[in-house]
């Protein structure tokens, strides 16, 4: 299968892929800061005019989501998989379509 070959090709050159991705990230931030490329006239708040504002927003948002959610989960929300299972078992006949 050709597609699997392509994925394998990219995986073999993981370092290069990572470098290219980092270069794209940098490029996006730099282009965003050039007024000739990105017209910020329609921005709604002052903060949006700061260069790289949305990059920081995305990164910090992502980190906050992960850390706060994990913290919340470890308060006792995440629990063992058979938590609900000591119910009175009335096993129906198996009818598996999978």
């Amino acid at each position, binding site marked *: 299968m050709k597609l699997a070959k392509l994925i394998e090709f990219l995986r073999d050159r993981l370092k290069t892929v990572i470098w290219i991705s980092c270069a794209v*990230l940098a490029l996006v931030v730099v282009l965003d800061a050039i007024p000739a490329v990105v017209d910020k006239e329609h921005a*709604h708040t002052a903060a949006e005019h700061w260069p790289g504002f949305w990059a920081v927003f*995305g990164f910090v948002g*992502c980190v906050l989501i992960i850390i706060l*959610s994990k913290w919340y989960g470890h308060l006792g929300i995440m629990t063992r998989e058979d*938590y609900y299972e000591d119910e009175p078992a009335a096993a129906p006949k198996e*009818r598996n379509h999978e």
Partner: protein
Amino acid sequence: MNSFWLHPSLILILGALALPLVPARLKRGYLLLIPILLFARILTMGYSTSGTVHFLDWTLVFGRVDALSSVFGYIMSLMCILGTLYGLHVKDDAQHIASWFYVAGSIGCIYAGDFLTLFLFWELMAFSSVFLIWFRGRRESLGAGYRYLLVHIAGGVVLLGGIVLHCNAPGHDWSFNLMDVQHPTPAMYLIMAGFILNAAVPPLHAWLPDAYGEATFNGSVFLCAFTTKTAVYALCRGLAGMEILVPLGVIMALYGVVYAVLENDCRRLLAYHIISQVGYMVAGAGLGTQMAINGACAHAFAHILYKGLLFMGCGAVLHMTGQSKFTELGGLWKKMPWTFVFTLIGGLSISAFPLFSGFVSKSMIVSAGFEEHKYWVGFLLLLASAGTFLHTGLKVPYFIWFGKNKPKQETWDRAAEPPWNMNAAMIVASVLCIFIGCYTPYLYKMLPYPDLAAEYHPYTSYHVFETLQILLFTGLGFFLLLKKLVPDPTISLDMDWFYRKGGRAFLWLARKPIQAADTFIGELYRVAGLVPLMLSARVAGMFDNEVIDGMVDGLAESIRGIGRRLRFAQRGQMQQSLAFAFAVAAILIIAFLWYSKALAR
């Protein structure tokens, strides 16, 4: 009925009823034909109000076709084709019948012009969709199905209560139109509660991941499209501009994201992201401006396609490997690379990447928030979209198709690309997701306010760079914190805890204290009641011998006759009895309404 008007749902219902009679070799063609006929019927319906039926005191309107209902009808019938194509190889007729009835219910709600018709189809949806969960056949799915049904029955009763109060108030009739959202009455809050239960707004949302994670592999493809989006339609139609929906929508958008971090089952994760995405639409309905309603409809349209695609991708993994948990999967890119690509397209669409469908729909709602100067709405919804990319665009593909985890040998051996029909459905959905993202007039022309939509341009340099920065840097965060995101084999407690554990507390109450009290009272009766009873019995005995016997004999004979008939009606199946009981209740309520109305005159 003024003239014959073919209700689109009728095509599906009759088609479903005739399905068992179709010979096996024609079945596949037939399965595709009926949804295509439905789609064709919906395309040919011009804007009008038809299908008006006078029933008792009411005027039932089955066919209100206007801009708002057309866009929903269009996408739902399209999704019916895709969903049926996806499950085309399923041999069990009952599954197709259940899903078609379910779609028929949903389309019936969309075109309903009055509250009673809406309610009728609303319940049809609940009662047919539950079978898509039960048919999975696991013990867990049986329980999940019952919980789903009970929650929806409760929601239906609340909705009906609201409808009855609202429509019987002076100055109101039964037609289903925009209500006076500036002055909400208790009845409107009840109606809203019924609607937002189906839209899965926290705290009324726990049924959704519970049920959608447990349904059959193709059942979830149907489920993810219809119930919540019908509710979005109902909110746009009846409660657009209701202030409280804005904060509720924003909370939803973030709530789903938080739970998606914790989730280990890929289909439950997608289910939490339905909550998150429907949050945008609920917020849009709450904002209520023309731009926001356009956005809510556009997003519902795009969402049905990309969420269907995502459930198809994860459903294909489940169907082929028997697994849906991240901890049981990994490294599947070698075995199912095309499924990976399709799922990734779904992931990029839901994350609103430029050139994908979410980009041109989600941004309308965010812009509407900013334009109303509700900056917090805009910023929080953008935060939620970072979370969306984090999970659906990155976590799902990464931990199924890559990741360090090695699945069991048995899972690995089973894994392969799915049958052609599943691939075909995924290809069509993928193409549509990209097409909508690239060629905006296709979607924008269908929206309720097409002129306004034509003036909206999502592809400004600012918007593209804003989105790219948010999403790409979310990706950076994902790979830097990858270790923290490795899924654990756990489940997460949600609002369903209250009724799952609460139900058990109720059973305990019934078993222990209530039974003890019952025994005690029984004993009391025996001691205190026995002596006087014996006395009176002797008197009664004489009376009985003379007078009653004759009457009783006749009565007993007739009761035996009724019992004989009832024995055939009672089939001993809990599901059937429930449906039967509900039908009787519905008839009683309607009879009562009619009677009370007749009395009032």
